């Protein structure tokens, strides 16, 4: 009966009741862990005392595989890390290789990469929004999110033949030119989605239950966000300006103007609002670029066997989850000597214990949803 007493009067000194912490395994097969993530929870009644992530259930050692593969092949492996921003992952590797080779990339490629990158971000946030609602118990959001994501996937499918793991980028440019319908359909999507974000707000954001669940939960201070290496919307929800697109612009992002979504509250609601805001910003970026995609080549020729000069190369990009870093050490051969992917999810999951302790089980699930983790991104 101890648990009931505590739930009703959490502040009361329950000296009459023997309090006992217990241990519970959340995952690796659990609906809220979004994949094969295992959390070892220490719980007192409903209150979380400790969260310890146990990773590696889907670790494929991509970094080791990269040491075996050529630079063109590495690109394909990165799709399988954060599969929801596969295009941006590809882009990161391509940018690193291009930087090392000092290739001059045509503007057309840069603009297309940026547009597709932002579409990817919207698609990822759509899925996140749907799943976020589901995690707090509003099952309908899932289908709304997927409806809009579907349109983006159709655009991708038409242009590059794949919907999720797109492999559209190659070192030196793009695999193919864009489909003739690309511009038209992207514009259609932008017009469509502008009417849908307010719908999202009506369905979930304004809901009183939702607000009560999110506000003041899982608070992350700015200092902690930096110290934990948080990035992406998680860090921006804490007021830490960390958008790689702003601070280290790549591709065509230096040609567009957009606002970095920032909130200072640091709670789950702030992280939620940052992502909603980001969808608007991405739409604005797409709108600025879609009408003036420059003419030109869609790739520059590279050698069939790419050999990077000896040295170390680091490139960071902003995926839908935060800062993805690609660190390539080359000894001048056709294979990289060492590849390290600094994945945003890995750093973000490390702060889960910090922000979830003291909350209820329901809070943990909601907080985890606002971290927007993708397990293959953590495990790589």
């Amino acid at each position: 009966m101890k648990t009931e007493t505590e739930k009703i009067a959490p502040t009361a000194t329950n000296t009459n009741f023997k309090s006992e912490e217990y241990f519970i395994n959340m995952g690796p097969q659990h609906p809220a862990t979004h994949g094969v993530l295992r959390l070892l929870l220490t719980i007192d009644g409903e209150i979380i005392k400790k969260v310890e992530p146990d990773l590696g259930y889907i670790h494929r050692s991509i970094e080791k595989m990269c040491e075996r593969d050529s630079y063109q092949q590495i690109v394909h492996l990165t799709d399988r890390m954060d599969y929801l921003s596969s295009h941006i992952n590809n882009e990161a590797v391509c940018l690193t290789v291009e930087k090392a080779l000092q290739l001059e990339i045509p503007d057309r490629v840069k603009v297309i990469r940026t547009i597709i990158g932002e579409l990817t971000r919207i698609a990822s946030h759509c899925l996140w929004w749907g799943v976020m609602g589901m995690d707090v118990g509003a099952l309908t959001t899932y289908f709304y999110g997927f409806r809009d994501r579907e349109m983006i996937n159709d655009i991708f499918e038409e242009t590059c033949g794949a919907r999720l793991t797109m492999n559209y980028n190659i070192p030196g440019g793009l695999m193919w030119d864009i489909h003739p319908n690309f511009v038209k359909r992207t514009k259609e999507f932008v017009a469509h989605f502008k009417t849908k974000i307010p719908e999202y707000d009506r369905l979930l954001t304004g809901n009183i239950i939702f607000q009560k669940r999110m506000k003041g939960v899982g608070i992350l201070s700015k200092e902690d966000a930096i110290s934990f290496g948080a990035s992406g919307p998680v860090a921006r929800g804490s007021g830490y300006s960390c958008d790689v697109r702003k601070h280290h612009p790549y591709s065509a992002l230096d040609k567009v103007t957009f606002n970095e979504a920032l909130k200072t509250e640091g709670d789950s609601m702030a992280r939620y609002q940052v992502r909603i805001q980001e969808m608007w910003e991405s739409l604005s970026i797409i709108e600025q670029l879609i009408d003036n995609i420059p003419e030109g080549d869609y790739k520059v020729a590279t050698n069939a066997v790419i050999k990077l000069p000896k040295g170390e190369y680091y490139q960071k990009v902003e995926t839908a989850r935060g800062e993805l870093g690609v660190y390539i050490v080359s000894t001048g051969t056709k294979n990289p000597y060492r590849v390290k992917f600094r994945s945003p999810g890995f750093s973000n999951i490390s702060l889960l214990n910090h922000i979830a302790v003291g909350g209820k089980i329901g809070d943990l699930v909601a907080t985890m949803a606002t971290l927007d983790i993708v397990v293959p991104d953590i495990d790589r």
Partner: protein
Amino acid sequence: MNNNELQELIGSWFPNPEVTIASVVVEENKESSDLSTEKDEEKITTKEVINPSLLSFTEEGSEFLTIVVKPEHLHALMNQLKSNPKTRFDYLYCLTGMDWGKELGIVYHLESTVYRHQLVVKVNTEDRENPVFDSVCDIWKTAEFHEREVFDFFGIKFNNHPNLKYLFLTEEWEGYPLRKDYVDEVNMVIK
């Protein structure tokens, strides 16, 4: 701060005792460094480098200024980089374990969220049997998980790490998969 200024400043924190004895007055040196007591002990042990600083700087083959530091100075240097008001490297965005063939090492990528300058710190050891470095997770909390990852895949241990155990691998795993000499005939496809 640009790379030259950074190099000058950071280099001054770890003056090489051999050079300082020859050129600079000892008292001045003590004043300029918070870590003088620590350095007094180290003076005896470190003699092999002839360099104005105990750190070696390079910009070759990398876009960032790279510092190679000795393991014994690692924690003091990192602490300075984070807390010194002129450097303020408060964002450790990447921590990479490396197997250089003969040596094992770690590469730290640092950025300052205040000044937006970036820096790479490298630390290496030749001890492949029992490599140990000081943990930096009291300086940057993100290091806790990253160091565990390095422990998993390179077998590098960290002093003062609060929870150093396998993060990805199972507890009974043998060998360190990302080392160059790791062999697994079943799972590794070599082309």
